[in-house]
């Protein structure tokens, strides 16, 4: 433990993953234009942005799902190319995809250990089942049985499985694309705890989220994407939720601020009504 922590300390703040000038087109749509991003070890970098801002596209480029049209990726200070998901795994990049990417016909254990089964020529089902239960318990998962096909799990149960999957193996960088979107309150809390533990172990964490509270709670820096372009990188400590939202929507006067305003006036009105 202590040696790991030392290693963590040593590596902290070294940039494990760094992107420069990444662009990606899909047909006529420019999903990403000239995007830069740095992920230091032992840091949590939150990537935020509006729907369709290109966050998941960025994730897919990092995890070898799509090749970028242009731009460079450096991993551990070496320029690399990540042509396939297998290459990303080899580099030590583990990803939880927004669309989860589970095999519906396989059960929970089979999905958890897919591609990294214990004892390839004579599967050790018992060990895999035990470790599955451990992992799931750690995430407070509410899954009645691990031997049912993933097709029959609830949305949050699936997301838990996808998150648990990424923790197997020993990643150096972990990318979470809206990991808590479908999770219950307890599970969300556990995942945030988990992210903090990962940071303490010196991993680089990229977390995508629309939940500003979660971002404020665990992230060290926030990178904002807007319509496929960088729109600012902020240290979390120095920035307010309103500022981030302004950067996301591109305006200080937006649906969120309007709504907040309205509900404040309403509350005020309600109070008046009460006092009258």
């Amino acid at each position, binding site marked *: 433990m202590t040696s790991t922590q030392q290693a963590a300390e040593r590596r902290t703040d070294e940039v494990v993953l760094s992107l420069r000038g990444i662009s990606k087109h899909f047909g006529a749509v420019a999903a990403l234009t000239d995007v830069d991003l740095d992920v230091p070890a032992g840091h949590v970098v939150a990537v935020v942005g509006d729907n369709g801002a290109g966050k998941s596209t960025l994730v897919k480029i990092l995890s070898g799902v799509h090749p970028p049209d242009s731009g460079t990726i450096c991993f551990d200070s070496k320029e690399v190319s990540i042509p396939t998901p297998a290459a990303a795994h080899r580099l030590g990049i583990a990803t939880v995809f927004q669309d989860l990417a589970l*095999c519906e016909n396989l059960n929970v254990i089979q999905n958890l250990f897919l591609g990294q089964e214990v004892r390839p020529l004579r599967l050790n089902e018992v060990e895999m089942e035990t470790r599955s239960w451990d992992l799931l318990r750690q995430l407070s998962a509410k899954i009645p049985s691990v031997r049912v096909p993933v097709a029959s799990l609830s949305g949050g149960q699936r997301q838990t499985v996808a998150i648990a999957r990424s923790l197997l193996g020993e990643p150096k960088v972990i990318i979470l694309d809206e990991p808590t979107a479908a999770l219950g309150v307890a599970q969300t809390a556990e995942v945030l705890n988990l992210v903090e533990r990962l940071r303490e172990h010196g991993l680089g964490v990229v977390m995508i989220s629309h939940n500003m509270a979660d971002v404020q709670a665990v992230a060290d820096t926030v990178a904002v994407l807007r319509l496929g372009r960088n729109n600012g990188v902020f240290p979390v400590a120095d920035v307010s939720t309103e500022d981030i939202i302004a950067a996301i929507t591109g305006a200080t006067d937006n649906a969120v601020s309007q709504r907040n305003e309205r509900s404040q006036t309403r509350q005020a009105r309600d109070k008046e009504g009460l006092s009258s």
Partner: protein
Amino acid sequence: MNTMVTTDRQDERLQSRVGVRGAITDVIERARGGDLGVIPVAVGLVVIWSVLQVLNPVFLSSANLVNLTLESAAVGIIALGIVCVLLVAQIDLSVGSVSGLSGAVVGVLFVLQGLPIWAAIAAAVVMGAVIGWLYAQLFNRFGVPSFVITLAGLLAFLGLQLYVLRTRGSINLPFDSGLVHFAQLAFVPAWLSYTLAVLAAAGLFTSGYVHARERRKAGLSANSVTMLAVRSAALLAVLVFVVWYLGRTRGVGWMFVLFVGMVLVMHYLLSRTRWGRSVYAVGGNVEAARRAGINVKAIYTSVFVLCSTFAAVGGILAAARLAAVNQSSGGGDVNLNAIAAAVIGGTSLFGGRGTAFSALLGIIVIQSISSGLTLLNLDSSIRFVVTGVVLLLAVVVDSVARKSRTSHGRA
């Protein structure tokens, strides 16, 4: 039975089912959920057998069932390969042609060129593997649908078969050759059959017992010893009965034993190795499999190679059984029967669902119908109609036994 609740049984929503009765309820539940690949087919099979036996009392005679087992082996092995390609949601339309070509190659090399039989067989099998590899290259490189690739293969390899046989048209394999003997006259001696039956049951028990002990040690729920004993005893009873009944005439053919052995091996590979897992994953969701770091192309390659190889083996056995190869070997309904066997046995055309046993059960359904109807003195026209209707009957029984599959998505 356990006073302590095991790790995997802690959720309070789980209805706990213990012991043999619990296991039976479980099986029924799973079958209704569309979850038990082969059990419903087995029910269909029982129905067909009863119908055919009523129509002609010779059907369930020992002599006829011995024929049935021997007739199932060659196409059954081909169907085993088809199961693999269907599992990854692909298809191979060329297994008939490949099997015919492979038989022709053996005939030419062994009879005309005078090579030793093992060399001829090896050449044919390797050729099958190479064909599969070729398919995989075309599929992986260009993304051509396997339907089209193997349709082209169907034509090309039929042509090659005709070409290989061009000087002769038809070649007899000598009756006294080991290959023909194996396919026609080699039966397992009674003592060995019984021994194998006992070994199989004992094996089932032991492996179950070891597994259950490991699970219990890890704090997981496990089958009770009673359960395991009941299951093994049931298997023993069935096997001993089969051996005894077939033994009333000629017994269990080695070719059938080979087929069943291959089914068991494939079952192991598919259910107990990483490769098998990857096959199901690719069939269930290619993109998810790819993102899990699985080498999807390698999986496709392995599966196409397996399928063509099995087709080649099946072709050799078919030639051996007929003691001849000719220009129409592998033609006729070999293709359709092999694919139909896999599908009838419960393998989905859409990938990711099915087991090696579906080849065994499916081919037995098909051959039962065909054999049962040859025992009836029917006009060809009527025979076709009846074959169609009985086939449908078998599968309707199967489908009714499961809950409507459509409500669970694609069948």
